[in-house]
């Protein structure tokens, strides 16, 4: 045994020391593991502190340690810390092993003897393992300077502009005909009440005109190959049936188009569009799209009105979907959210009771460019409501639907209340569970609403019905609620009900996650690398997330994330290359028999088979280090750094050095 | 009481130990032939897939794996109730005949031969195949080597490997042979016939013409009057691969002739507490202890017994030698154990002739190799096809059908050394009559 190993047992204050007898453990390791090469074993209050790290570094230098085992918290917390400490003392960082005696021992066990014995076992496992560690160097791969942004909502727009302004190419992919996302559908934005379009459109135009941005609307990502630094992304451009190079966006085609279609996307079903259309006047790009599902020509084979009237002959009924592949170094996913479908709560009557509206419908009603020209009226399109009820937390904070808080509904509802009173003077009731106004200027807005005389009823709405019990309820919608402040059941008749539906992950978010090789939470929001410290990166190098795709948030927060993701990527682009974890598989060419068992096991197609030499080989840059091929190779020809057979098998031996049933009686 | 221990017994396949007890006068009072080994094929074949039997039982004996391979293969044919196509049967018998030639050569020159060629009193260091080669000279030695080589070459061509063949499966074989291979096999076969005749000449010159040996053979010191077992074809001629089991009594008259599958009705194994070996005997005669004669179920299964149990050989040259054999030794049956070596050479000649017969039969290549040994597609009950009963029963059954050059003890005694050559068998016999 030539290795000289140092073992460092952390108290983590009382987090570990409170349950594990750290002094005993460290003493035990020093004595009982001496044969395994342990030359020094210490315990210390906080190993991760600068003093703790210096302690290790001092030993590395003075004791000529060749391996270090730190017994502290989870490697996911401090592996880097201690590797860097070793590096600082001139020891290859990968010769350090951090074993967890906190998350997996002191925090989860109460029997002190057992926990102490387990700590010993865990450390002996770490010692046995670290002997077989090899000095590794990170793998360096170049970063392609171009970036792909998926999703043209405010988060995606912000990210694209940040990167493009910094002078690098961005491909912005949007599956709708225009960028803008949900924000483009809104009327006013809280708390300042400035017009959504007024602040968004300039940014949209910037994107449209930006020399560094390649805008790909009416397009979807089909396939993602490669790895951080150089992804090859295949994008499908759906046929617009418009020759964009000829189209001026004059609008004659949609004026002349005879076919009216209910607009379920932008107008949320409140208004119509034509079969050839732009979603909204300020759409970017300005080119329309022919909706080949509803277009008379595609249904009946005749019409072609648009083609007849188009001044520039920009119509092309034979246009086919087109696939392009772009090379990018990094990817930002900003694919946004879906609205909770209020129909799922039948007792609220949406879809059955005409004057129950969703928040999105109401945004369109308020919007001057919307179906009612901005007049707040009932479904009949003329009657102004005298009383309006706004129901908060629809589908949110409700274990039957979504347990989480959608974060924006309170402020949105307050905004609605304000707009209703401002424009109709109607009486407004807010039905809330709690009012949450945490951000800058939000609470002030709430106070203003209170002063405006909006009524607030604290209680979860039980039912919205049109079944009257008393004459004054006739012809009204009655909101049944328990007012928890006065502890009474109340029935409040109103003319209009607005349901503040919460946000939920995109219906296809799981597929998108698979496509880009990242993971979803239980609620299907994309999972960030760290909830606090790294909210825009993902577990997959080179893939970032921004906006509501990561979880419910309002516009400012989405903009922040878009900018943050952009900043992260700009940093990478500046470095020109990235250092990857050297945990990789390699195939011993002499031992490989070319049996081809491994060939289809790699989801990253990192394994290629040489027909000429009849052996397989791993592309280290594509390899993600999962080790599946290592485990599968029947010839034992594939080895995996960082998690080699020797390392794991020795760790098993080490872990089994102590039998737990001895825990009650200290070993020897 | 004086004791002589021979440990281990040598120049035969397998493990054995002989304890000889002498009285004050130095005469043998008793001798025990002990088998010190048990590997447990009967146990661990249970639960294995049926098609593996030809591969597993191979390992009972690496000197005659072909015998066990054939035996097990025929058992699996029976398990699936399939008739092997004629080409398949011929290929198996061709492989087996070639193996006979190589194996009998090994036994005669390497294992038994030294006793004769080197003489009973030759020093240990020389009493072996190399000594033989030194004595008879490289030219003859070369022939011996050549014969072994040819035999194993055929085994490899048809069986896939020189030792422990792997191509026999339920219903036939995994592959056939090409015309080039057939030609090669035929040529080697013709050479084998010459070699067999040459070997008989050697035996004639070295042994029969030597009075001392001849007396040893015809004298009654190595004589036991037992039953004799062998496999015979429909004309009661010796056959190695297929036929019925025929047993003749010490008087040379047929005692019984039965279908191999009925082996259990005729054979039983006696157990002694001082050895791992089990002692097979004719059930219906009964176990009377280690003694010979018509009342003792002890029987012999060797080249000699096969000649005794048959009415002749199915090929002309071998038939001529067969007649010479009995006329020289004074008619049937021959009870002198040492005549086994002569009988073996007659079988060698028969095997070589049969080898050429089969290699020149037009049907030997009548089937495309991919069609070989495949069960009818209709057959698809597979899951129950693992050995679920005592495999030695099976192994025995078919071993009896095959009736290899090594006697019936082979399967029955697979519990000890897998494969006692007749040399150790005759040793067994010898221990019996010391009683």
């Amino acid at each position, binding site marked *: 045994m030539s290795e000289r190993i140092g073992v460092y047992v952390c108290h983590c204050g009382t987090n570990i020391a409170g349950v594990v007898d750290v002094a005993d453990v460290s003493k035990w390791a020093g004595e009982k593991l001496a044969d395994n090469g342990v030359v020094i074993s210490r315990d210390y209050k906080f190993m991760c502190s600068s003093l703790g790290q210096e302690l290790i570094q001092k030993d590395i230098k003075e004791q000529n340690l060749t391996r270090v085992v730190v017994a502290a918290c989870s490697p996911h917390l401090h592996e880097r810390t201690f590797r860097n400490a070793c590096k600082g003392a001139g020891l290859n960082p990968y010769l350090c092993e951090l074993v967890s005696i906190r998350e997996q021992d002191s925090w989860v066990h109460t029997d002190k003897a057992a926990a102490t014995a387990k700590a010993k076992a865990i450390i002996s496992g770490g010692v046995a393992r670290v002997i077989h560690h090899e000095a590794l160097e990170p793998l360096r791969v170049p970063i392609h300077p171009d970036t792909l942004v998926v999703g043209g909502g405010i988060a995606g727009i912000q990210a694209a502009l940040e990167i493009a302004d910094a002078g690098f190419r961005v491909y912005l992919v949007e599956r709708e005909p225009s960028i803008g996302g949900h924000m483009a559908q809104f009327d006013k934005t809280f708390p300042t009440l400035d017009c959504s379009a007024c602040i968004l459109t300039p940014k949209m135009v910037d994107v449209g005109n930006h020399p560094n941005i390649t805008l790909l609307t009416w397009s979807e990502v089909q396939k993602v190959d490669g790895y951080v630094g150089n992804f090859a992304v295949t994008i499908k451009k759906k046929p617009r049936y418009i020759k964009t190079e000829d189209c001026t966006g004059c609008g004659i085609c949609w004026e002349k188009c005879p076919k009216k279609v209910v607009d379920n996307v932008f107008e949320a079903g409140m208004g119509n569009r034509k079969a050839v259309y732009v979603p909204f006047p300020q759409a970017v790009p300005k080119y329309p799209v022919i909706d080949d599902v509803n277009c008379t020509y595609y249904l009946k084979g005749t019409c072609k009105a648009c083609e007849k009237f188009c001044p520039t002959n920009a119509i092309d009924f034979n246009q086919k979907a087109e696939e392009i592949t772009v090379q990018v170094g990094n990817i930002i996913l900003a694919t946004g959210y879906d609205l909770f479908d209020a129909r799922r709560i039948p007792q609220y009557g949406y879809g059955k009771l005409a004057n129950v509206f969703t928040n999105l419908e109401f945004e369109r009603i308020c919007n001057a460019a919307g179906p009612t020209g901005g007049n707040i009226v009932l479904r009949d399109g003329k009657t102004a409501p005298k009383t309006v009820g706004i129901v908060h937390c629809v589908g949110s904070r409700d274990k039957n639907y979504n347990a989480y808080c959608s974060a924006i509904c309170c402020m949105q509802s307050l905004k609605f209340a304000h707009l209703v009173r401002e424009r109709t003077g109607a009486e407004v009731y807010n039905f809330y569970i709690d009012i949450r106004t945490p951000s800058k200027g939000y609470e002030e807005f709430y106070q203003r609403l209170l002063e405006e005389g909006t009524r607030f009823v604290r209680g979860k709405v039980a039912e919205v019905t049109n079944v009257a019990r008393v004459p004054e309820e006739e012809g009204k919608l009655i909101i049944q609620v328990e007012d928890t402040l006065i502890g009474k059941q109340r029935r409040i008749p109103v003319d209009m009900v607005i349901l503040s539906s919460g946000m939920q992950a995109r219906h296809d978010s799981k597929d998108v996650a698979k496509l880009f090789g990242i993971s979803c939470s239980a609620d299907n929001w994309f999972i960030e690398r760290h909830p606090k410290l790294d909210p825009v990166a993902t577990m997959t190098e080179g893939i970032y997330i921004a906006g509501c795709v990561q979880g419910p948030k309002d516009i400012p927060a989405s903009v922040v994330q878009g900018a943050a993701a952009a900043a992260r990527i700009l940093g990478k682009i500046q470095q020109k290359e990235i250092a990857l974890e050297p945990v990789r598989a390699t195939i011993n060419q002499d031992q490989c028999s070319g049996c081809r068992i491994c060939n289809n096991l790699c989801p990253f197609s990192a394994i290629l088979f040489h027909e000429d030499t009849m052996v397989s080989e791993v592309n280290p840059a594509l390899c993600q280090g*999962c080790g599946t091929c*290592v485990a599968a190779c029947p010839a034992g020809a594939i080895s995996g750094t960082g998690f080699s057979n020797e390392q794991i098998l020795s760790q098993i031996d080490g*872990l089994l050095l102590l039998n737990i049933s001895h825990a009650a009686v200290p070993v020897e | 009481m004086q004791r002589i221990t021979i440990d281990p017994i040598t120049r035969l396949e397998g493990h054995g130990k002989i304890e000889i007890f002498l009285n004050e006068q130095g005469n043998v009072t008793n001798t025990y032939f002990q088998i010190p080994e048990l590997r447990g094929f009967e146990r661990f074949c249970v639960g294995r897939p049926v098609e593996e039997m030809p591969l597993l039982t191979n390992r009972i004996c690496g000197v005659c794996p072909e015998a066990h391979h054939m035996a097990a293969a025929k058992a699996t044919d029976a398990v699936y109730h399939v008739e092997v196509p004629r080409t398949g049967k011929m290929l198996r018998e061709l492989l087996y005949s070639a193996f006979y030639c190589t194996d009998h050569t090994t036994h005669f020159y390497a294992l038994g031969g030294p006793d004769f060629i080197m003489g009973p009193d030759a020093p240990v260091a020389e009493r072996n195949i190399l000594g033989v080669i030194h004595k008879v000279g490289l030219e003859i030695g070369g022939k011996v080597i050549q014969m072994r080589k040819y035999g194993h070459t055929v085994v490899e061509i048809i069986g896939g490997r020189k030792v422990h063949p792997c191509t026999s499966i339920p219903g036939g074989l995994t592959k056939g042979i090409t015309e080039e291979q057939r030609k090669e096999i035929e040529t080697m076969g013709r050479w084998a016939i010459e070699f067999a005749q040459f070997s008989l000449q050697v035996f004639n010159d070295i042994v029969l013409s030597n009075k001392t040996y001849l007396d040893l053979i015809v004298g009654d010191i190595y004589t036991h009057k037992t039953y004799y077992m062998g496999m015979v074809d429909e004309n009661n001629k010796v056959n190695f691969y297929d036929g019925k089991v025929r047993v003749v009594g010490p008087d040379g008259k047929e005692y019984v002739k039965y279908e191999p599958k009925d082996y259990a009705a005729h054979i039983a194994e006696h157990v002694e507490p001082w050895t791992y070996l089990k002692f097979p005997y004719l059930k219906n005669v009964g176990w009377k202890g280690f003694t010979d004669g018509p009342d003792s179920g002890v029987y012999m299964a060797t080249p000699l017994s096969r000649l005794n149990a048959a009415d002749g050989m199915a090929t002309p040259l071998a038939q001529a030698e067969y007649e010479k054999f009995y006329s020289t030794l004074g008619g049937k049956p021959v009870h002198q154990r040492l005549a086994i070596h002569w009988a073996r050479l007659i079988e060698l000649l028969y095997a070589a002739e049969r080898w050429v017969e089969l290699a020149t039969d037009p049907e030997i290549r009548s089937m495309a190799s991919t069609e070989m040994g495949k069960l009818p597609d209709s057959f698809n009950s597979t899951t129950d096809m693992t050995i679920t009963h005592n495999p030695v029963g099976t192994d025995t059954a078919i071993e009896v059908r095959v009736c290899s050059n090594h006697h019936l003890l082979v399967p029955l005694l697979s519990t000890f050394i897998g494969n006692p050559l007749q040399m150790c068998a005759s040793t067994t016999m010898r221990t019996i009559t010391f009683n």
Partner: protein
Amino acid sequence: MTEETKPFEPVIIGFTCNWCSYRAADMAGTARIKYAPNIRLIRLMCSGRLDPTFVFKAFAGGADAVLISGCHPGDCHYVEQNYKAMRRFHLLKRVLAQLGIEPGRLKLLWASAAEGAIFAAEINKFVEEVRALGPLNWAQPGEQVSTPIMEEVTA
């Protein structure tokens, strides 16, 4: 208290994947959810790295049971490698049974990074199941009746 009177405490080796089940264990820790101390975890990058050799090694080394855990099907950080672990698990169980090791001593557990509580609960359940099975003591070569058999000397 003496060895005899102590209840049997099984030793279980658990293989976890870096992305889901190991994080589930971390989560259980951060949430201070208590569970039986009988399990000792080994971190692999992915359940796809699980080599049956590891399982055999654990049993041969004296473990009473082995836990294999990874991301839920479809959630694999490496897209679909946990399915390979699942396939191996199914074959492993069959082989172990033939080698005289009760299938109950090998458990496959899918746990997402968020399922600390489930992870802890499953471990407790498993420990009790193994406690019920008793110490791993597969068909002993050894004792005999009339044929004396040498007791193997433990080196």
